[in-house]
């Protein structure tokens, strides 16, 4: 047997995969061969280093809880879409998804972006449009309005001081799910931001920023939520708004593990 053969045997030996008779033969060889002994010692040192420096991990408790309670498919919600006339010329809508069926699907991001944009345009349609179910600039009025309509409470902020006033919220229907929308304003422009809990995120892939039919569509994630934002507002202003939401979310977020 040549040295490379022995080295391969050392790995098998240390991994407990060598047949007992071969193991004894190798042990005899190791006593006689300094080179193979050195190789073995290096492997043992590597194993010790891996053990101490590359730990096996524990699944986070939140993940364990989510998996213990998950069902074959997400909870379904009945769509409540009440069309109302459009009263507000400029607004930002934050749309929060209800349940979402997990599934790996190609084109998911593409489809979501398209639905979010459709929701945005529909919300602004004169006559048949429907911007808000709850019309208020008070986040403490809008946030509780979603209680009982969704099984989570989307974060609501008022950025009036920064020029993006909260205008209200609504339930909408996107991706086969009931969704909630929060509406903000920026001069004469409208922005829709869609969010749902990250643990229901279909992990659709979509660019951080894209332009569709003259509207800008942004997408970002926080530790808790996946967000979409859509508006005819200029891209840089829309991205300023994204930063405001990100800052507000991180200020409100629990400390990381």
């Amino acid at each position: 047997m040549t040295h490379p053969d022995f080295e391969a045997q050392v790995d098998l030996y240390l991994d407990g995969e060598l047949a007992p008779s071969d193991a004894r033969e190798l042990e005899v060889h190791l006593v006689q061969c300094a080179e193979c002994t050195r190789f073995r010692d290096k492997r043992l040192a590597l194993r010790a280093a891996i053990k101490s420096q590359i730990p096996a991990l524990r699944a986070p408790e939140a993940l364990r809880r989510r998996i213990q309670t998950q069902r074959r498919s997400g909870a379904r919600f009945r769509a409540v879409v009440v069309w109302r006339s459009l009263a507000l010329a400029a607004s930002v809508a934050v749309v929060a998804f209800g349940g979402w069926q997990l599934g790996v699907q190609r084109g998911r991001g593409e489809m979501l972006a398209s639905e979010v944009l459709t929701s945005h345009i529909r919300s602004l349609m004169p006559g048949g449009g429907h911007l808000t179910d709850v019309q208020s600039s008070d986040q403490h009025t809008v946030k509780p309005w979603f209680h009982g309509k969704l099984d989570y409470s989307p974060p609501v902020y008022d950025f009036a001081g920064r020029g993006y006033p909260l205008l209200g919220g609504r339930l909408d229907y996107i991706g086969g799910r009931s969704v909630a929308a929060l509406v903000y304003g920026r001069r004469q422009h409208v922005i829709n931001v869609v969010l749902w809990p990250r643990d229901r995120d279909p992990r659709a892939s979509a660019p951080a920023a894209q332009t569709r039919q003259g509207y800008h569509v942004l997408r970002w994630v926080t530790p808790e939520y996946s967000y979409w934002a859509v508006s005819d507002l200029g891209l840089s202003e829309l991205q300023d708004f994204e930063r405001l939401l990100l800052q507000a979310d991180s200020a409100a977020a629990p400390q990381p593990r």
Partner: protein
Amino acid sequence: MERERFERIVLPHLDGAYTLARYLTRNDADAQDIVQDASLRALKYGDGFRGSTAADARAWFLAIVRNTAYTWRQRQTNAAFVTEFNEDLHSDAGAAHDPAIAMDLRQALDQLPLEFREVIVLRELEGLSYKEISEVTDVPVGTVMSRLARARKRLQKALT
């Protein structure tokens, strides 16, 4: 799959699943997504599991986790890949150990191709046999052995 069976087969192996996903993605949020997605697949398609032992169940579930992670990787854009990598450079994993040494070996592991990284995690961290690794990674035992040898050789360099 029956709820009860799911709890017996999948839940005991969440730590191993998370460990594998975390080292494959090098990222906590993606690892959690992958494990949750994989457990949902297990719940949906678990009737196809024919094994009897806990080790069978572990290999079966880890294979689902591994395939989910590979699907995830295919969807990543180059930009996302870079962001994720940088993030991990500043992660707190291994912070309890000597940071200088720990980062060297962790970095060496993180820089291995997925095919090498997974055999190291499955063998050294999870203690799977060659045969089990071959089931999880869907390659012959001989390939498992050669990948392990090559991966170890590259990690060894980080130690010297």
